[in-house]
């Protein structure tokens, strides 16, 4: 979503993005003229008149599970967004019985929060596990 019109989105997709991604952008490219949606999400820059790099993970119940906002010059880490979605999906699947510690990605160890875990995380989780 950006403040550009759907016509500009079409030009960008058809003339440039479709050369980078086969078949063009697979998801809807949303237009937010005036930044009205950006304002309610708190990422609209009034002075510059554009939206900053806000990214929101919204779960199947419509609940915001996480967000990240960057100023324009720095791009996002797409892998990190995907990792976070996978982690939230895992937590949801276990109905909160499992939590994903720092550095978790699919296949890595999860933690089961509860009285027995208090003070014992160091036995189950090592600092190296925070890194890839």
């Amino acid at each position, binding site marked *: 979503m*950006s403040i*550009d019109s759907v016509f500009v989105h079409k030009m960008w997709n058809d003339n440039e993005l479709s050369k980078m991604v086969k078949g063009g952008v697979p998801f809807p490219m949303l237009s937010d003229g005036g930044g009205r949606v950006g304002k309610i999400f708190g990422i609209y820059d009034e002075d510059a008149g554009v939206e900053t790099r806000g990214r929101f993970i919204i779960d199947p119940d419509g609940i915001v599970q996480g967000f990240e906002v960057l100023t324009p010059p720095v791009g996002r880490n797409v892998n990190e967004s995907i990792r976070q979605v996978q982690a939230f999906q895992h937590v949801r699947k276990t109905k909160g019985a499992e939590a994903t510690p720092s550095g978790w990605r699919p296949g890595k160890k999860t933690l089961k929060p509860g009285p027995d875990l208090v003070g014992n995380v160091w036995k189950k989780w090592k600092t190296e596990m925070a890194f890839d």
Partner: protein
Amino acid sequence: MPKEMKVGCARPTGGPVGEAVSEEKTQQQTVQEEVKHMIQVGKKAPDFVAPAYHKGSFVNVQLSEYLGKWVLLCFYPGDFTFV
């Protein structure tokens, strides 16, 4: 899921859903309303509609139509920049 729309010469726009727009609002009231809408994790995402370009068509997208699915909503400064 998104409904196709007829596009004329006017630039289509969307906006928040479920919020009564009153012309008589003072500026202060508007500010208070914006503060009320700040995003918090663990809380509902505000619903909105927005016109969109999707695979060759102009459509209208409403966030609440995606209930039941995971949504990654990304904002960016402008077309023809990186994302």
